[in-house]
């Protein structure tokens, strides 16, 4: 089993995301995370999928995705050649006297406090999946009340893999 990140360029039409996720569920492939959003050209959406499987399964995932009528490009975002980011919002229980320690950890991870209440905080943090996992580990001792992670978005580095669309 290995993990791979795929980037898809798909028609920005209704139902396209359900076609993609439907393909994964009916063929028994894993989705670890999926993110989607419109591109600079509103005709297209860019989708980042993190998936895992053995070589044969990953090859099939790539081919089956490419076969979907609405998908223009399927591209692997290779580690080292790509930038991956995820955003997480973390609501932690935090009494006023605990704030300095939580803020200190947040600062080290270049996170932001985006909401403060008398007994809790919301922290916004972006980074790759490992960074967010580590941040959450370091919050140990503070009760995480709610956690919202977006899943990974990614782009390949440099000009080489840029696809110019009509």
């Amino acid at each position: 089993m290995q993990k791979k990140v795929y980037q898809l360029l798909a028609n920005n039409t209704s139902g396209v995301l359900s076609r993609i996720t439907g393909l994964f569920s009916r063929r028994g492939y894993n989705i670890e995370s999926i993110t989607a959003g419109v591109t600079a050209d509103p005709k297209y959406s860019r989708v980042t999928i993190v998936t895992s499987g053995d070589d044969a399964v990953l090859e099939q995932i790539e081919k089956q995705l490419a076969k979907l009528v609405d998908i223009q490009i399927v591209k692997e975002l290779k580690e080292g050649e790509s930038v991956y980011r995820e955003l997480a919002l973390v609501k932690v229980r935090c009494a006023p006297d605990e704030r300095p320690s939580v803020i200190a950890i947040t600062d080290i991870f270049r996170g932001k406090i985006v909401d403060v209440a008398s007994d809790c905080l919301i922290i916004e943090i972006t980074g790759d999946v490992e960074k967010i996992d580590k941040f959450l580990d370091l919050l140990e001792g503070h009760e995480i009340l709610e956690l919202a992670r977006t899943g990974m978005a990614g782009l390949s580095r440099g000009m080489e893999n840029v696809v110019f669309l009509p």
Partner: protein
Amino acid sequence: MIGAEAMVKCLEQEGVKYVFGYPGVAICPFYNSILESDIKTVLVRTEQNAAHAASGFARISDVPGVCAVTSGPGATNIITGIATAYADSIPLVVITGQVKSDLIGSDVFQEADITGAVESFVKYSYLVKDADDLPRIFKEAFHIANTGRKGPVLIDVPIDIQNGVIRNFKYPESVNLRTYKPTVKGNSAQIKKVIKELNKSSKPIICIGGGVQLGQAKDEVLKFAETHGIPMVTTMMGIGTVPSSHKLYFGMVGNNGKPYANKAMNEADVIMMVGARVADRAISQPDLITRDKVLIHIDVDPAEIGKNAVSSIPLVGDCKAVFEELLTQDFDIECGEWIKELERYKKELKPVRKPNKKYVDPEGFINELTTKLKDKAVYIADVGQNQIFSCAHAVIKSNTRFLTSGGMGTMGYSIPAALGAKLADPSRQVVAVCGDGSFQMSMMELATFCQSKVQAKIIVFNNSYLGMVREYQHYTYKDNYSMVSLDGSPNLEKLVSAYDFDYYRLADMKGCSEVIDAFLKDKKNALLEVMIDPMDLVK
């Protein structure tokens, strides 16, 4: 012009001659508008058979079959037919009526999310949201259905769109699908590898799948095999591509195929898999066809290559284009010894049946029947023992077409498919062969033959059992039969007389030839009931 008129106009622009279907309120605007057109409509008796009939039509005419049904139960009923076509890559354009756009999602009467429901059985689907999109959508639907790896496309049209006004109808001359461009031409570097491997090979074999017929590459593939003397086998969907008497033909592969065909695959050093997906029934152990051999896999669908067997040389492309290219190349292939070896296997491994003389022997009967069929006849086998007997014993002549539901194995396929096939080319002799189980799944369509004035020639293998399942229970459950007896079946003579069909019966092999002659010569609709040993086995 309203949407419904535009839909009919789109079909006219595509050259559609027949629409198979069943009405209901949500498709009524369309069926009202079609009255103004020369397009003929065929009212089937249940929606599933509209798709099967369209499938038979598509396979004989090489253009997409078209069906139109209503929303809700009409749409859900047709799903099995769509899935059947999808599994065998048959091009269909399926139009479904839908409830009013602003009511979608509120569970109103006869509402079903059909685009969602068929997602895994269609190449693509549309839910029309604006009547002005109809011309583009129809153009794209026909293009997608009939290019690349063919398959069904569904267009769901809400009733308000059918009644909505289109100001400016213009049918597009071409499609502009940014994200859909199937590969046609084979990669030249891969073709060079094919040449190299075939030249090194002393035991090559070509395994022909349904894609060869679908890609209209029959002539090219046969010419290639004949030019270089390469032996051929077929999958079930490939039957009909090579005449049975062809010197280079060694039968159907698979667990229901010929032992010598499987032996040939196992002994070969290079396998050219053409338009076949290495499905489990054809190749039960994919590692056997890749271990110690070179697998050249030629398919228009890249996802089929490597799915079930890892190929040494993947070659994505249209079969016809690839073999046209291969025919221009020089090869140095010598496999005379190999052919001799295969001929020996064919003699040694020929299965011998011991027919029960009290009944009709399926082998002898099918042999006799198919020998008597005219040039260009269409033989449609249903699903069950009748199908396996047909695959094993049908005599294929050079222009015979052999149709069956291979991938999905849908019982009841043959009768509606025969209706569609006959309409596609009335000059061809069309025979549907089914079991007493599959007959009863589609017998309501006898009325459709009568109403549409299409000649029906139906053969029913009667063994009073769901024979294929009984055979499975014989081997797997030691004759503990469950749910396989067909007691209570109707008297077929009485049944078909209600439809004014002529009836023939063959109890044993005595008079077999004469009965078949009379049945085939009959100008009326006819059904021939053939009594088979209930305990007969295909293996």
